């Protein structure tokens, strides 16, 4: 392989794919990035076998070919170059010459044949989203994904497509966040549930920053996302996602509306007296008043009232403040609506369009 490529494009491309690389001793080739010429472009790929990402960058090809190089070291070298053209020349001994300006490196690589190819996605469905909107959806719910490895199905985001709408869901079993949207063209008749692992969601978010479209291809077992010159492919999490609809109460006795930012401020202030992840903040509701209070034996207590529109009976509900802080931080809306029945049953928070958050109160 003999190619010439701009260092800026290389750096940009490597940034997108580098995170997938985990240091492994069992399969050394996975520590590498695969470089190969393909359709007049330089294709770079990394994989951890579950998730793989390919990005194609423009280059001048003098001689077709392929090689794998230690990914982190390669990125480090490229990143150190001034802007300009980088020449990559491989020889049959798997040594690659990397040169830019006066600088010249010879780096040992491993043969490209050893590199696992990404899974072929047997496309069942194909669907386009606006990148920015899709990215925001993931951000609005991503914090709710469970990290409990003993419940693997919850370690990802569910994309549930039914009857022309898509619901993205994340839950850790104590709270649940979802965003629901109608699809154009009634979703082309797609019907199915797909659970994306957290790792892919995180990588995906990096690729969704600019305007444009992302094409999602879905199969029974895999998903791939085509974004400009990159393709991210991942296994889906196997198993049946819990029936999340069941945990959303159908009707509510009470409702209260609060300005989001002010509410977040008060919540943060009041929870400053707490020093334990298991502690709660109490919400005392009376007509037109909401008082947040918290206390801990070690630090002390705090209390702050808020004017709210509330007409129901006086009631006190306790929450884990961390579970409230997350949605408050990640929403855009001005006002939140909290709906509930009593201090024991699931409480729902509504905000941005299509967003719904269910949280289980704490009780003593």
């Amino acid at each position, binding site marked *: 392989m003999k190619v010439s490529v701009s260092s800026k494009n290389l750096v940009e491309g490597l940034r997108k794919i580098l995170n997938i690389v985990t240091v492994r001793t069992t399969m050394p080739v996975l520590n590498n990035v695969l470089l190969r010429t393909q359709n007049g472009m330089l294709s770079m790929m990394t994989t951890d076998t579950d998730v793989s990402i390919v990005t194609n960058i423009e280059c001048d090809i003098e001689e077709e070919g392929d090689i794998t190089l230690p990914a982190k070291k390669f990125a480090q070298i490229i990143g150190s170059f001034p802007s300009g053209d980088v020449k990559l020349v491989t020889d049959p001994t798997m040594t690659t010459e990397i040169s830019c300006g006066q600088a010249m490196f010879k780096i040992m690589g491993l043969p490209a044949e050893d590199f696992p190819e990404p899974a072929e996605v047997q496309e069942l469905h194909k669907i386009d989203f606006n990148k920015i909107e899709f990215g925001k959806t993931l951000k609005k719910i991503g914090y709710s994904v*469970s*990290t*409990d*490895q*003993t*419940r693997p199905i*919850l370690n990802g985001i569910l994309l549930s497509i039914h009857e022309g709408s898509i619901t993205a869901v994340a*839950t*850790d*079993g*104590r*709270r*649940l966040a979802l965003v629901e949207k109608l699809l154009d063209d009634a979703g082309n008749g797609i019907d199915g549930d797909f659970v994306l692992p957290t790792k892919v969601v995180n990588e995906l978010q990096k690729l969704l920053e600019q305007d444009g479209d992302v094409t999602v291809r879905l199969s029974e077992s895999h998903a791939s996302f085509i974004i400009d010159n990159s393709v991210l492919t991942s296994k889906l999490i196997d198993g049946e996602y*819990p029936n*999340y609809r069941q*945990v959303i109460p159908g009707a509510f006795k009470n409702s209260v509306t609060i300005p989001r930012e002010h509410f977040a401020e008060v919540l943060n202030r009041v929870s400053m007296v707490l020093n*334990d*992840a*298991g*502690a*709660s903040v109490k919400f005392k509701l009376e007509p037109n008043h909401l008082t947040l209070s918290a206390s801990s*034996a070690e630090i002390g207590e705090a209390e702050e009232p808020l004017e709210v529109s509330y007409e129901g009976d006086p009631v006190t509900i*306790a929450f*884990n403040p961390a579970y409230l802080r997350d949605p408050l931080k990640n929403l855009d809306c001005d006002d939140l609506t909290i709906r509930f029945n009593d201090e*024991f049953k*699931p409480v729902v928070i509504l905000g941005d369009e299509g967003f719904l958050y*269910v*949280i*289980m*109160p*704490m*009780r*003593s």
Partner: protein
Amino acid sequence: MSRIRILAEEVSNRIAAGEVVERPASVVKELVENSLDAGASHVSIQIRRGGRSLIRVSDDGFGMDSEDVLLCLEAHATSKISSAADIEKIDSFGFRGEALPSIASVCHLELRSRVAENPAGTEVLVSGGVIRNVAETGCAPGTSVTVKNLFYNLPARRKFLRSVRTEEFHIQEIVLLLALANPRAGFQLTFDDRPIIAVQAGNDLATRATMIFGKDSMRSMIPVSAENDELKVGGFVARPGLTRTSRREQRVFVNGRPIDARTIYNAVRDAYHTMVMKGRYPPVLLFVDVLPELVDVNVHPAKREVRFRHDRQVGEFVGIAIRQALRQIVTDSPPIPEPLRQPQMSERETTMPATLLNVNAGIPGRRREPMSFATGASVDEPSPSAFSATDADSEVAPAFAPRSPAAGPNSDRGRGTSISAAGRDAIRAMRVIGCLSDLYLLAEGPDGLVLIDQHAAHERVLFEKILHAARSRDGNRQGLLIPVTMEFSNADAAVLRKHHDRLNRLGFEIDDFGGSTFVINAVPAHFPQTNLTGMLHDIIDTITDSPLGARRVDDDAIALAACKAAVKAHDHLSASEITQLLQQLVDTELPYTCPHGRPTMINIAFGELERRFGRRA
């Protein structure tokens, strides 16, 4: 007419019964002791409804002939002593000859006994102390005493019997003590035909203890043994860090008798000194043997107390033995030498005593100091903490001079108290320099390389957190939006059902779906929130492994189980997680040991490194 009458015998027996027969467990104790006195090699104890409806103790001892069978029911009939002088050197359990008549006066008693020489045995039926029937009967050699309807004629007493479970608990404790104390005999205990304890004759103490307490529990115990001309102590003591809220698991035997011995309890307390928080008790299983003439057991009719002739010496002897055992577990140099330079500190900051950590015991080649009770001047005049007394160790093995001169065992370290403010600062000042296969953190300490067992450190941190939450009982519970469904084995399901209330009090809400299916609806908010399934399994295992079921499983055990499950999940730590872990560790009460008593950190002193690299001899 005179008002004073001699009480009918059965009435006076019934009064005496009040002293001897307090509850079913005391009947069991008297009967089993009789069996042991009769040289039994196997004793089987069958209990129904916590002893209310039936207590049967059968043995293969030497039995009684038809005459003795009747005689033994007479007050003060005993075969074990005949003169007042004999009292001086009792080596049998019974000697007052009042147990059988007392018991017989408050129940329906059936006594069957046969001496091996006779082809047939004798059966006596007694109710309320009155012999109803005597007959020849066919039976195996040995004795079987059956007590039915205990306290049937003392309604007030009967009413005060506690629940079946409580009575079972007391019976189990008694049998357990007897089984531990009498390795020659086999024991079998059943409650309503459920096997509870089964040990074979001849099993040694370690085997017996493991069979009774479970492997896991015994793993947290370390052996103790010491002997001189007059005294002998053996058994097991808990690793530092393992404690209970009550003294119940401090089991002490004097000359084979389970005893409430204040002298020994105090010795235990002093030996652990700073390793144990106030109001906590390390479990111990101690056997103290004293020459019979140096101990007086005739203090209390229930014979739970003794008086030692040389009370103080016994206490000191036991204390030294325990300290020596504890020292064996610290197999390396001190985790952090810094606290040694700081003799004074506040009461709350108690932990592994600096001395313990610093003494070079357990190092290969070290000679163990022979016990020198009653001769060594240092023993006569122990310091209040008693640690300085045993520091004489360093004189015994001068070859093992302290590795860090400033922190040597001979330097004045006050009363061997614990991690000081300076000690905490020393931990804080450590610079983490790496991580060894996701297991150990390596740090640069003030006196060399410090290795921190990531897992042990994490366990200590979590343990104190959970324990604190469990104790405070004000814990919130976090409801689960998506309940967790769990399947258990039948045995585990039974445990879960039995302890449902207790778990509920802790903050678990568990729905029983019948069969083996349960659904968790809420968990204590202070508990780790991941791996709920694993956590519940671990808690059930802890309950099952505990010798007496959850009545014995205190908050410590639950906390331990809970953090076990949580810590499993953690392996690779990021830099910020490491910093956080160390910070949290510093803030714990006992940062140097994990809840199982293993060290959380060890220090390889520069001196040691120099020696190994041949820079210094």
